[in-house]
């Protein structure tokens, strides 16, 4: 077993900020990332050896990333890339997928697992050709490919226009954008973005580009159904009202080959659930948020969180939160005085409050509306992994089971490979219609290892490796 003072799980902006700051204060730090390169989702790069002269998509916060990378590379931070953490045992023992030496005993842990795209179920959403907006961005930025044929973009928020522009610039055929909000609401919601001339300029640029290519933007509209046998062929578009419910009688059909949709992001809480941290259910984004102190320590002593894994706040906020954690960890390990730590955290918290407007903007823009539930029919798949339809869930609820864990046991919803990531949000929306606010806040699920599917072969290798070590130790005695 390895011993480390500070282990950071994740390699995105919050993780990098924390590792860089902690290391600069003398903390022995290890950063564990699942990907081949550090950066997480937002700083995703083109996979080597694929190369391109000019970046295919404008790289937001490029300078910030370059600075972070430099801080890390000139520090003593140990970066374990291409390494999966599959559990956090009691006493802060981290389990990785290195079968020969999988365990790391950490004094302090930062869980910076980021966020993922909120699932919004509708008839046909599981068809090949229907994908998340993030998914199509990864294809473009990391793999240098664009969706082929007629591409429809749907959902809400600034990412729709950004992605549509990026795809158009690279030759994709965008047949339209469906924005759930009405035009007036969309304008009102965008006002906070105008405070940054840079953002305003960029936004106007995207929209001008879309207008020039005559890409129709429909406001108060969304996808009612995705149709096709082996893959997406057609989409039924419907107008939506203020609660984002489909307005009957406004349907029209549109031929499409790829549908990319986005209704915002949900904090990932797989590790915080595994580590048995306390969470509160938040219906704004139909997910969970770990509870934490002003220095980002969770309910489990010496386990911290930072970044989009706490609440969606974007890159700059994530980095600052990471630095607060790095500072606090140094203080807890005795490398920084109370006064010094207090001074530094005060400055960081001031910087954080200057970014709060962005968090508020994201929260408002992507706030869940119950009308989306009206898109579901009896036959709509709610749990993609276990193929559980709405009618099964409704039946179980009618029979008297109205809580996540019970429904999970009776229907297998949430027991598949994604471990509830893409079905819990829909179920939370359904339950919210029947449970009181007080009951909803306490809804939660049990997280069990491994956090991602692992082949049994790994555990047998790990066991035989451990036995060999045991034998060697016995012999040496």
């Amino acid at each position, binding site marked *: 077993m390895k011993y480390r003072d500070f282990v950071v799980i994740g390699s995105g902006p919050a993780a990098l900020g924390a590792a860089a700051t902690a290391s600069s204060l003398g903390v022995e730090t290890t950063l564990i990332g*699942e990907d081949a390169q550090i950066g997480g*989702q937002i700083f995703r790069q*083109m*996979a*080597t*050896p*694929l*190369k*391109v*002269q000019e970046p*295919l998509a404008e790289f937001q916060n490029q300078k910030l990333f370059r600075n972070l990378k430099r801080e890390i590379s000139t520090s003593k931070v140990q970066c374990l890339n291409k390494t999966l953490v599959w559990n956090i045992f009691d006493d802060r023992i981290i389990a990785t997928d290195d079968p020969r030496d999988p365990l790391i005993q950490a004094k302090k842990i930062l869980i910076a697992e980021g966020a*993922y*795209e909120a699932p919004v179920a509708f008839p046909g959403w*599981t*068809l*090949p*050709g*229907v*994908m*998340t907006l*993030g*998914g*199509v*961005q*990864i*294809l473009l930025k990391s*793999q*240098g*490919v*664009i*969706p*082929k*044929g007629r591409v429809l973009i749907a959902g809400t928020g600034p990412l729709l226009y950004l992605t549509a522009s990026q795809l158009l610039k*690279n*030759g994709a055929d965008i047949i339209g954008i469906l924005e759930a909000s009405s035009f007036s609401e969309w304008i009102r919601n965008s006002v906070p973005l105008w405070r940054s001339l840079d953002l305003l300029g960029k936004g106007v640029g995207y929209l001008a580009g879309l207008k020039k290519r005559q890409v129709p933007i429909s406001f108060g509209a969304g996808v009612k159904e995705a149709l096709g046998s*082996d*893959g997406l062929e057609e989409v039924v578009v419907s107008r939506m009202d203020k609660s984002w419910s489909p307005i009957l009688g406004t349907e029209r059909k549109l031929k499409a*080959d*790829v549908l990319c949709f986005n209704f915002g992001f949900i904090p*990932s809480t797989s590790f915080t659930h595994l580590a048995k941290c306390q969470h509160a259910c938040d219906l704004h984004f139909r997910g969970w948020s770990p509870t934490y102190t002003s220095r980002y320590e969770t309910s489990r002593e010496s386990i911290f969180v930072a970044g989009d894994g706490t609440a969606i706040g974007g890159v700059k906020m994530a980095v600052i939160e990471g630095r607060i954690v790095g500072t606090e960890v140094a203080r807890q390990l005795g490398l920084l005085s109370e006064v010094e730590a207090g001074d530094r955290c005060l400055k960081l918290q001031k910087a954080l409050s200057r970014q709060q407007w962005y968090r508020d903007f994201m929260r408002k823009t992507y706030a869940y509306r119950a009308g989306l539930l009206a898109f579901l029919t009896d036959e709509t*798949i709610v749990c*993609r*992994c276990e*193929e559980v339809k709405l009618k099964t869930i409704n039946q179980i609820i009618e029979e008297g089971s109205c809580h996540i864990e019970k429904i999970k046991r009776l229907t297998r919803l949430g027991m*598949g*490979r*994604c471990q509830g*990531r*893409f079905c819990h949000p829909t179920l939370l929306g359904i339950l919210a219609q029947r449970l009181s606010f007080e009951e909803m806040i306490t809804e939660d699920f049990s997280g069990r290892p491994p956090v*991602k*599917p692992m*082949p049994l*072969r790994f555990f047998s290798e790990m066991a035989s490796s451990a036995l060999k070590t045991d034998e060697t130790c016995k012999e040496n005695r």
Partner: protein
Amino acid sequence: MIKRLDKVRRGEPFTIRVDDDVIIAYEGETLATALLASGKGIIRRTLKDKSPRSYYCGMGICNECLVTLENGNRVRACQTFAAPSLKVNTHE
């Protein structure tokens, strides 16, 4: 479902086997990219309803893009890099 952009510099293409077919791939591409670019939109079919599924989240957490390697391991196509003479099975 997808097409490769000409402006991206790629190395020499190699082939991988997918069921009874042979498709091309480039170093740095994931199995998902190679499959989707070759016209194979359906990556797997579900156990119960045999519904067609494909690339969805792209970041390795939805587990829709599962394929089976020669050694029997079930892997996420979007997180597994293509390599020369790889053999992939999409029928479990």
